[in-house]
């Protein structure tokens, strides 16, 4: 390798280790993320396209703004952040590891000068005796010490929670673990949806990209129901589902209720209550004004039909009992919308129990036809989100690691105390990796106590 190459690699390494890069990436990610909260994500809606110029549209599309969190440059930023935090960790870890595993146990002059907290006092008595005394004191008041003898001086070293220096690396690691979980989920999982009619079963779901995925088992919707509060606001959407293997119900997965915020999981695939609808049908009898040419007409709840005279109709809503809305009337009723062949549209309420009203309304409006409501078969279907995400456990592990790591990083501190016994002088020094002010108080109390103890022995 030439010096040039080595120089290049070196500066590349330094680039990835630099905190300037970290700051740049965090701030850039924060600022660019805003774009995706302003520009609609996914296929841009028509109204939005009308608001922006063709030039802007082309630009946004080229920059991937319509799916920006998956655009190459956003992903690149995330990868750079990952490389950056790995490189930073690798660069600093050996040093930290050394502090933890091979602590400096000797309080020499250089170390003494570097410490913020140092106290020195005279003590009488044999050095061995003093050492014993200090060791017992540290073990009782701080942490069990390590003793070393060098150049006629006796050194004691004690420390608390040295491992908390690693917590920041656990936080960095947790980010990577979360990314791994997300990647596992995107490769081996899917998100889909499915509509199931009451009484029907399905064995495959459709993903967001429109692909059909077989489940390997079937799910039957036994029933779907909506309950309301007195105010008319929705209280609960509930599907009753049964899981079937080879056409037979799976024990423990029969008639399971699935409501919003309470999904059903089977074989790693989870079904979430998401939407619903009515796919039933309404039956009508259509006649001329004089009651001739009676034709039965069946209208699907979500569709329209064309009538013999060329007009089309669909049902807006139905009720099993009209009484609360029209006092004096009773029985089922349907609200229809009719589009005539000459382009007009009109709305009409038709009744099951009041044929004379149906006829009167038709006469009022001219030539007919007359509608008679014959009843409705309700058939609800449930809309379920379906998700399989084998990476989610890894993501939670990463989150746990992150929370524990952040708490340790902020609220724990590596505290060290050295004591040197040399020629009748006891010197105590100490430092903490964080929160110096709090440690200073602890240290001063400790030193005061030690001083009293060492001189108290003499008395």
């Amino acid at each position, binding site marked *: 390798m030439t010096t040039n190459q080595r120089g290049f690699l070196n500066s590349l390494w330094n680039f990835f280790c630099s905190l300037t890069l970290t700051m740049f990436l965090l701030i850039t990610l924060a600022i660019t993320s805003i774009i995706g909260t302003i520009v609609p994500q996914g296929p841009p809606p028509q109204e939005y396209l009308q608001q922006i110029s063709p030039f802007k549209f082309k630009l946004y599309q080229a920059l991937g703004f319509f799916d920006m969190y998956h655009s190459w440059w956003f992903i690149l930023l995330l990868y750079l952040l990952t490389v950056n935090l790995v490189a930073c960790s690798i660069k600093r870890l050996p040093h930290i590891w050394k502090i933890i595993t091979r602590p400096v146990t000797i309080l020499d002059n250089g170390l003494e000068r570097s410490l913020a907290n140092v106290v020195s006092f005279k003590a009488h008595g044999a050095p061995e005796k003093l050492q014993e005394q200090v060791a017992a004191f540290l073990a009782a008041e701080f942490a069990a010490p390590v003793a070393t003898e060098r150049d006629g001086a006796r050194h004691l070293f004690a420390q608390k929670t040295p491992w908390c220096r690693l917590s920041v690396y656990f936080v960095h690691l947790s980010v990577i673990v979360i990314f791994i979980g997300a990647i596992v989920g995107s490769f081996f999982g899917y998100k889909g949806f499915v509509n199931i009619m009451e009484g029907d079963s399905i064995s495959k779901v459709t993903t967001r990209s429109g692909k059909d995925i077989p489940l390997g088992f079937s799910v039957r919707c036994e029933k779907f129901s909506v309950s309301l509060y007195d105010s008319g606001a929705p209280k609960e959407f509930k599907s009753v589902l049964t899981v079937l293997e080879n056409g037979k119900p799976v024990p423990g997965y029969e008639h399971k209720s699935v409501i919003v915020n309470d999904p059903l999981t089977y074989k790693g695939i989870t079904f979430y209550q998401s939407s619903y609808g009515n796919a039933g049908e309404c039956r009508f009898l259509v006649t001329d004004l004089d009651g001739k040419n009676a034709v039965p007409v069946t209208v699907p709840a979500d569709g329209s039909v064309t009538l013999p005279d060329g007009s089309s109709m669909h049902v807006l809503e139905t009720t099993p009992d009209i009484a609360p809305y029209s006092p004096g009337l009773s029985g089922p009723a349907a609200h229809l919308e009719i589009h005539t062949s000459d382009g007009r549209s009109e709305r009409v309420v038709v009744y099951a129990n009041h044929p004379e009203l149906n006829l009167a309304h038709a006469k009022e409006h001219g030539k007919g036809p007359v509608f008679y409501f014959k009843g409705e078969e309700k058939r609800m279907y449930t809309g379920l989100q379906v998700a399989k995400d084998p990476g989610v456990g890894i993501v939670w592990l990463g989150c746990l690691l992150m929370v524990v790591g952040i708490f340790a990083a*902020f609220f724990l501190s590596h505290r060290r105390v050295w004591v040197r016994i040399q020629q009748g002088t006891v010197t105590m020094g100490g430092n903490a990796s964080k929160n110096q002010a709090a440690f200073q108080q602890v240290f001063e109390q400790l030193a005061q106590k030690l001083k009293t103890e060492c001189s108290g022995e003499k008395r």
Partner: protein
Amino acid sequence: MTSSLLFNVTTFAYLVSMLLFFAFLASRAAALGTAGIVTAYAGLAAQSGAILLRWKESYDLGFGHAPLSNLYESVVFFSWTIVLIFALLDLKYKYRVIGAFVMPFALLGMAWAQLGLHSGIEPLVPALQSNWLLYHVVTCFLGYAAFAVACGISIMYLIKSGGEERADASSGLMALFPPIRVLDDLNYRAIMVGFPLLTLGIITGAAWANYAWGTYWSWDPKETWSLIVWFVYAAFLHARFTRGWVGKKAAWLSIIGFAATIFCYLGVNLFLSGLHSYGGGR
């Protein structure tokens, strides 16, 4: 006794507390500072009682739920967490004057909630019927409140450091302010409390989303903005730990962080669309 009466008492107490703190600043009479903090504690007690009472009232109506479900309730809770974090700070450090810069946030919240927001107790829509609501909202708002306190302290820092450049800082208003190093440290400490809470808030939100519809992260505007806030404070902490960003730079970053927090909380609901629909609670 109804919760709405107690909320009125709370708002009034916060107003009085703020005015007492202002008077304390102007007069430097220690008794006014004490009166200010006592009133703030009284307000906090009244508000705690009011929140519990509202909780109970919702059960009396037959659809009990924690009072955290719409904009009114969340603004009230935000105000409560701000005073709570300030109270904890006061118990530990006893810098009364911080109240003059924190109580206005709490008062603003209560006044807006009571004057401008719909305060009816509504039953929970299916999407909100989950225990995760409690964990998610409590952690998020405690985090937001810590950032609010950090922002108030940063404003004090900038005022005091500006004063120091101009004239003798030991005289006048500035004499009451904690030393500039203390303000810088308190800013950091408040963020140190807020950041883990925000992290927990994002994680509980993700857990809830995963439990409710199988996607722990969907780049919804609210989620994205919470991540933006997280990035800003992560940048703050990295700058501080390893580059020694203290003082004015740190104070400005803290204020920017709180601006992003407020946008995440309110701006997203008012200007952008997404999953957190409580912005429509007017």
